[in-house]
């Protein structure tokens, strides 16, 4: 009975998992065929004439590769800013009592509710008026607005799991709060820093709305917009689009696979008690 139960569990996971993986398999399957084969009838589930044409198209297009560089610059900058500010704030929120602490926390929770489209209006007007339209700085500032609140909460939840006795011991040894933060709190926070970093990077890498509103040239635009623009084009080269989509997804999947141990620990530190 128990054995049969187990077999059916494995079977259900495999079947359900396979169905849910179909879109990704389909993306890869399209990426490895020529464009006329995309909609050929009858539909080819596995490309009959597999080819790297689509990848050649992408690699031959200098401006598409530029989009990758832009995405890395913006996402890494946002990640660095968020980790710095969020780890300091996380320490402050868990270790000290001060006036306005609750107010600050309520405000952070509220900002998580701001519709991005609401912020996009004043950002657009501000960024154009100070001449920052179509710059990395514009994107980095805008992305920080929605990544920072979540980063602060994640870091706070993580630092709360570090025993307070550790910093009390440091205080007795004569360490001030800043020294305590850098020497005592930061080292064991590494998993939390990685989790927050990965999460911020994913959010920033995948953002779309602000990039549409605040940029208009390939010199600055991130990858998401590049893919979005290809969707809108009249004669869509679906195979190239899927090849580019595949290439855009690989960095995130690799980051996740390498760091997932920390990531899972950090993401669920606060919400599961």
């Amino acid at each position, binding site marked *: 009975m128990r054995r049969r139960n*187990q077999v059916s*569990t*494995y079977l259900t*996971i495999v079947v*359900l*998992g396979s169905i*849910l*993986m179909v*879109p*990704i398999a389909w*993306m890869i399957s*399209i990426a490895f065929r020529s464009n006329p084969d*995309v*909609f050929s009838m*009858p*539909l080819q589930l596995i490309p009959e004439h597999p080819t790297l044409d689509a990848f050649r198209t992408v690699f031959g297009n200098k401006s598409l590769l530029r989009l990758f560089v832009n995405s890395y610059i913006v996402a890494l900058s946002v990640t660095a800013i968020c980790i710095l*500010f969020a780890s*300091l*704030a996380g320490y*402050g929120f868990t270790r*000290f009592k*001060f006036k*306005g602490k*609750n107010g600050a926390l*309520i*405000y952070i*929770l509220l900002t*998580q*509710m*701001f*519709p*991005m*489209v*609401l*912020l*996009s*209006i*004043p950002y657009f*007007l501000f960024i154009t008026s100070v001449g920052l339209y179509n710059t990395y700085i514009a994107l980095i*500032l805008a992305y920080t607005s929605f990544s*920072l609140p979540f980063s602060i909460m994640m870091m706070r939840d993580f630092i709360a799991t570090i025993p307070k006795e550790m910093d009390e011991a440091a205080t007795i040894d004569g360490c001030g*709060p800043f020294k305590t933060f850098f020497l005592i709190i930061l080292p064991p926070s590494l998993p939390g820093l990685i989790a927050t970093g990965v999460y911020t990077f994913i959010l920033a*890498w*995948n953002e*779309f*709305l602000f990039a549409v509103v605040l940029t208009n040239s390939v010199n600055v635009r991130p*990858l998401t*917009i590049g893919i*979005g623009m290809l969707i809108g084009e009249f004669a869509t080269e*679906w195979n190239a689009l*899927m090849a580019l*989509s595949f290439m*855009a997804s690989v960095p*995130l*999947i690799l980051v*996740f696979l390498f760091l997932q141990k920390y990531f899972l620990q950090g*993401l669920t530190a606060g*919400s*599961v*008690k």
Partner: protein
Amino acid sequence: MKQAHTNSENHLKSSGRSRSQGLMDFFIKASFVMPAMILLLLLTGYPLFQVIQMSFFDYTDKAKPVFAGASNYEAIINDPLFWNAMSNTAVFTIASVICGLVLGLTLAILLNQPINTRFRAIYRSLLMFPWLTSSTVIAATWILILSPFGLLNWFLRSIGLESLGQTAWLSEESTAMFGVVLANIWRSFPFMMLMFLAGLQTISKELYEAAEIDGAGFMHRLRYITIPQLKSILLTVAMLEMIWNFRSFDLVFLMTGGGPMNATEVMSTFIYHFAFRKLNFGYASAAAIIMLLIMISASILYLRASLRKEANDH
């Protein structure tokens, strides 16, 4: 008398010192939180203030906006397109959250069964992929799958549903929302699965063993152990997903642009169109403020629960 005088003088002095010390203390303690809070206020507080202000102005003449009182709000309340966007947003959010919760919980329960740990780790990672994929990639892939000559129709035709297999899912008014929601559920189930799985792992095995001895079937255990034990995480995740779906923009914008005939126009795309296509910033701002108010009032319960948890934890 003299004694009392010096005493009170001492008292005054010391309280003065402690006040300045208190101020110093506040700055040291708050200095860790301050940079992040100032940045956040500049990036969200001030812009919010601007949007509130703009919502009371008429932008017909872009160079010289004029004060217009509450006329933007009045116009919105009387705009059938606004109410259309509102009800579409509700359908999009509720359908996505309910289906996502069911799918996420099902997968989490399956992966929490006593199975091979490597097998579990592999499937858990694989099933996270949709969450790691950007919305533009998801939109592109699903446009392809849902196209008249796409994979879904191929499947429907091959199981004998010939006429249903001719549907242009994203360009028909009656099916476009279904298509967008389908892609959205696919995007959002992994996060829910992950959170539920983490929650399930904290439930003690003894509870299940005791129930099994008492002869409780699967549905019984689900109803009387799993769901009550997961209650707080279920509510948190449901609330977060509500918020994220309510303000969602990318998938709708990329897959249908709000069409056909506004059938998939949600609040975010509605506001975007007014702000950046029609350049009517006043009207768009007012709509955005209404949207924010709805979101905040709908999540008051969540906010209160978070604050209570806050008070207990720290």
